[in-house]
């Protein structure tokens, strides 16, 4: 069952962002003919490089930015419909939104921050108190109520921002690169917390990021965007193993990409594909095996120690470079002659 449905959305920015009835004189639209559905209780990650339009998408869904055309609906409710001239204000869509900069109000305590949306809903004081306490408990920050955001660390602030967006029980949660400003090890623990809370509360969520490891960690489904368009959607496995186009193959993980610009594909790919008719072929580094009795040979050009594995760049015949991984410390050195075999490749 569809929960959030976006059809044929068109969003663009004008220079002064002024309200203009005639929508079609603008410059480049950020999103055009964009459609997406998100299922109930699903956590969808929108993954893409900077400027691909993912933040714009969130702005449109939340109601902070009015689209030029298209339709957005959530369950039975229509948020936006250009043809029927419906546009529900952001204040009334009952959506939670976590910002990259946390957006905690500095002059209010943690308690006041979280309680504020409840107060504007005229909730009873006692009820507010218990709700806020519950929320703080959820992120293991009980007792922080009287503190000010300025005295909290980045991770603590993000947790508060998260529960603040959830305290009024929205049915949709939007997160715009919430962990971008945090240290790497903090990110890992926090992202698991986020997933945990989302699952526990059963709230539909859209998580926007440019960080692949985050996406792979928590997504039920990943939507890859580039320049306002959806390049591929699917589970993390599908995205990784079955990249459907050049962009995805290149963007996700490390990949060796070969095209037939020189008329043909490298010889070591011949076994796997009748490649003349194809546009490009991608080979994951981990799908290249180094063994003494493999069919093809090359010379090690670079050795890069990455801690848990070593990367080798192999120079093959025809001037082609190949990157491969090997677990643990380096076995080979620069200049070594090696033999390798391609186990699997993706045809794009």
């Amino acid at each position, binding site marked *: 069952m569809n929960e959030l449905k976006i059809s044929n959305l068109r969003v663009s920015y004008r220079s*002064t*962002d*002024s*309200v203009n*009835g005639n929508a079609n004189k603008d410059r480049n639209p950020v999103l055009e003919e964009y459609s997406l559905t998100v299922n109930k209780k699903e956590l969808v990650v929108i993954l893409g490089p900077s400027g691909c339009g993912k933040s714009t998408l969130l702005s449109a869904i*939340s*109601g*902070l930015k009015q689209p030029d055309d298209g339709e957005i609906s959530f369950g*039975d*409710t*229509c*948020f936006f419909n250009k043809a029927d*001239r*419906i*546009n*529900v*204000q*952001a*204040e*009334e*869509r*009952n*959506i*939670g*939104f976590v*910002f*990259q*900069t946390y*957006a905690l*109000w*500095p*002059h209010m305590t943690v308690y006041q921050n979280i309680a*504020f*949306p409840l107060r*504007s*809903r005229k909730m009873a004081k006692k009820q507010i108190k218990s709700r806020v306490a519950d929320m703080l408990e959820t992120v293991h920050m009980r007792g922080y109520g009287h503190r000010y955001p300025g005295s909290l660390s980045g991770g603590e602030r993000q947790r508060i*921002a998260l529960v*603040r*967006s959830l305290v*009024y029980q929205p049915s949709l949660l*939007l997160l715009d690169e919430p962990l971008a400003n945090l240290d790497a090890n903090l990110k890992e623990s926090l992202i698991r917390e986020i997933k945990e809370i989302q699952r526990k509360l059963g709230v539909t969520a859209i998580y926007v990021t440019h960080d692949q490891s985050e996406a792979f960690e928590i997504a039920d489904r990943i939507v890859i965007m580039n320049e306002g368009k959806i390049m591929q959607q699917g589970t993390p496995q599908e995205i990784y193993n079955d990249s459907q186009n050049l962009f995805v193959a290149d963007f996700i993980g490390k990949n060796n990409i070969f095209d037939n610009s020189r008329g043909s594909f490298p010889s070591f790919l011949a076994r796997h594909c009748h490649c003349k008719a194809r546009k490009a072929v991608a080979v994951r580094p981990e799908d290249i095996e180094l063994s003494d009795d493999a069919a093809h040979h090359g010379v090690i050009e670079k050795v890069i120690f990455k801690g848990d594995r070593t990367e080798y760049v192999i120079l093959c015949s025809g001037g082609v470079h190949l990157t491969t991984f090997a677990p643990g410390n380096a076995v080979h050195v620069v200049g070594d002659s090696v033999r390798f075999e391609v186990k699997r490749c993706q045809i794009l």
Partner: protein
Amino acid sequence: MITRRSSTKSSPLSNMKLGERASRALPFLLLLLVGVFILYPMIMLLVTSFDQEGAFTFSGYASVFSSSSTYKALLNTLQMEVGVLFGACFVGGSLAFLRHKTDYKSKHLLDIFVFLNFTIPAYILSVSWIQVAARNGYLRRILKVILPNVQYNYNAYSIGACIIILVLHVYPLVYFGVGNALKLLGNSYEQSAKVCGASKTRIIFRVILPLVLPAFISTGLLVVSRTLANFGVPAQLAMPIGKEVLTTRLYSAMADLNLPVVAVYALLLVVISLGLFLVSERVLKKRVYDSEDLSKDTEIISIKLGKWQGPIRVITGIFFTISILIPFLTIIVTSLFKCWGLSFEMKHLTFQNYVRLFTEEKLLTRPLLNSLIYGIIAATTAVMIASLIVYFYQYKHNRVANWLMSISQLPIAIPNIILAVAAMVAWINEPFKLYGTASIIVVTYTVLFIPICIKQMLGAAKNIDRSMDKAAQTMGIPVTMRYARLFLPQIKDSLISGFLICFLISLKEIPISLLLYSAGTKTLGVMLFSIQSNAYGLEMTSSVAVIVIALSVTGNLILNKLGARGYQS
């Protein structure tokens, strides 16, 4: 753009409807308000310039541009501007340089003295000048005792005197403006120059000076526009010898009862002022030498004074004695005289002047009360309106908000005296007959204050992360709450500083109240300017001046405590 609520779900935040409608209507209402009180008087000024007793005519323009007095006034104004500009830049710049770039001792004293200089109203400085330099002034009296045979022929009234007094009044603007720039620059530039082997003077003139040139330009323009708009000083020091500048020319023209001529002079001043303002905007847009001292070096001294330390301290000592000590002393001493021209003997001194000020209501207490009340009402109104305008400009950046911002900031480019003349011609007729009441003064003050408050708040507002308001929006918090509970508290300091700055201005403001006051609505500024009459001489002016200085210093001290920078208004 029609927005309809979705058919099924009812919003749990029903009070939002009212808030939403209000938020949509409010910018338009504000625009209307601002348009009426700011644009309409200016338009009326234009209309009046063509209107001679009901008939359309160019005679006003003809009189003004064919009269030699106009050109004399323009020349005098230009002379004054150039003099003040160079003087203020030289004094302010040198002191700023001393403060931030050398190892001059007692730097904090520098700050304090410059601050004190800033708190003395220019008009009072000019009064003390007269007391010192006039024919029966203190200087001559002292000289008479020391050198009885020397003739004292110095003429205290001149454009040169105006320049000196105005330089003393505005150089703090340059000091603080250039000082800030010097601070922000850090010393990495000079250090790299030093490493390359440049000499001290080379460093000063080839590295530091060009880098702070933008700061000089922007504060210089501020100095020029303040000088152009000043009325009190040239009225006191140049009008008596028939030398007029544009502002005093306008004031004299009023006596001819020829309103079109007055309007033409007013428009002339507006055009020049606006031109300066636009130039400064353009220059400021280009200028930013983005400099950030990443090393966070607290010791940004790079020039050692060495053997010059002594002589320089003497020079600055003399300067501050002249610019602060002498005015304070003369004003206080004069205020104790029974009658200023008398010789300095105990029997001629008295506290009677102060007693009279506080007992005769019309002299001080009424005007002081008026100034306080008008100031408080106008400043409060301006703060409220400015905060709304800034909020809409930041968070609902549409055409209406842009117009609102542009129009509200217009008065910053218009000299006070013009605002007064415009108010006079606008509000003299039915149905909005404010002329003759306190309201016209309060309204004109408010118009004057709004751009000042906006300037204070805009900086603070821009520092607020935009996502704070957006977050509140998504949480369903209505715009009224967002404005009152989120926006206002975050710019709280600028609200207070804006209020105080405007309030302080109202205490010593002269041209607006002088032109618009009537029965019972005299203000402190009016008293200061016109208390010299049959019964009261300079001694009474001085006692009023002492009160004004006391208020000004106190108010500015409070402002300083709050960390606000009043000198940016």
